């Protein structure tokens, strides 16, 4: 085993898993503390990735995809729900950037405008047509007098079931309060998500109500005790209709 400051000679073998257990553990410990060797590691991982392409590319049977999608859509498959704080800021900006090109100065503003335009067009249409199945939908959330600068958007996935809420310019709350999203149908409110915003008022949360989001006619966000409430108790800050 080398006594050099860096262990670059051993990194190719480490990447391939060709080192014995003790040696591999030693290298792993060294990598945790050495940025130079970590960069070398990244380089050889790229080689390892390319080597995968030496295998002739063939198709698995269609049943693999069917099983996979059945698994992730099943009610008992836990979906990853990261804490809001762990999400990088602007993660949904990046997602929206890709979905709504060209990029405007404010992505949410553009999504709001698009949603409003689509909503106005739809409302004014002599014959209202449902949104074609298989298309992602957005619903603009507009700030109330309690939060006039706030903006938001409900994003409903192409299957109409799951989605996410993205908000901006909402005042950060103290630790005893959080924002709560309500899904509204026939006057009845169902909790959709409980979340906090960062110091700049930005927040994002997945919404998986267990029934299609397209069942609901409107969405609202209120200020509630931390952890949420069974029904809205606080000020409404954002709202929008499907």
């Amino acid at each position: 085993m080398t006594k050099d400051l860096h262990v670059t000679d051993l990194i190719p073998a480490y990447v391939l898993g060709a080192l014995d257990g003790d040696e591999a553990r030693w290298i792993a410990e060294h990598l945790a503390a050495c940025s130079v060797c970590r960069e070398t590691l990244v380089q050889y991982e790229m080689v390892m990735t390319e080597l995968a392409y030496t295998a002739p590319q063939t198709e698995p049977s269609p049943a693999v995809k069917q099983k996979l999608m059945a698994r992730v859509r099943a009610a008992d498959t836990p979906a990853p729900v990261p804490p809001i704080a762990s999400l990088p800021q602007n993660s949904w900006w990046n997602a929206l950037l890709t979905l709504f090109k060209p990029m405007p100065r404010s992505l949410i503003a553009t999504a709001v405008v698009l949603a409003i335009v689509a909503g106005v067009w739809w409302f004014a249409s002599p014959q209202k047509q449902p949104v074609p199945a298989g298309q992602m939908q957005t619903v603009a959330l507009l700030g109330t007098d309690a939060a006039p600068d706030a903006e938001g958007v409900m994003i409903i996935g192409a299957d109409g079931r799951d989605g996410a809420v993205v908000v901006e310019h909402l005042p950060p709350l103290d630790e005893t309060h959080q924002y709560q999203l309500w899904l509204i149908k026939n006057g009845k409110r169902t909790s959709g998500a409980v979340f906090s915003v960062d110091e700049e008022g930005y927040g994002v949360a997945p919404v998986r109500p267990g029934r299609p989001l397209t069942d609901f006619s409107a969405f609202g966000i209120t200020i509630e005790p931390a952890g949420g409430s069974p029904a809205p108790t606080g000020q409404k800050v954002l709202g929008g209709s499907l």
Partner: protein
Amino acid sequence: MNYSTVDDQTLIKLIAQAMPDALEALYQRYHRLVFSLALNVVFEKTAAEEITLDIFTKVWEKAATYQPERAQVKTWLVTLTRNRAIDWLRRQQVRVDGSSISWAQISPENTPASADNPAHATETKLRQERIRAAVAQLPPEQQQVVVLAYFKGRTHREIAELTNLPLGTVKTRLRLAMQKLHRLLFDEHMSV
């Protein structure tokens, strides 16, 4: 929703937000790579399909833990797949004849083209040609140790036993092979 213009990292972020459509898009993009790698490690279609299913299920479950600064999405997938497939090999205690293994056995020339995304198929084909050309420039003895390490998951010591070579020779050949592949693929100087 057309995800074809969404980059890999954004897809992972969407998957972490529990968007099944995003997982489906990632599957469409990489299922062939994952399955083919698994198949060329385990040489059993049913096992390779199970591994493919497991890998994408793991992506669904662990997307929030993916660190973009650590590795590209493709590298993450390849690493997960290779490790899983080699685990399968070890559990099956598959015997390997080190004297006869060669790259030709792993990589026959015929590669079915994809019909669903021509641009992706073209990129894949170019990658294949590039890596195969690089491998072809390795001396046969270096190719042999890389195959044993990469597709059979053998350690230095195991390769030395299989090939009846000194341990130091195996270590040197593997290191030189990987260094040469890196130079050929990425045209960068690696200090040693």
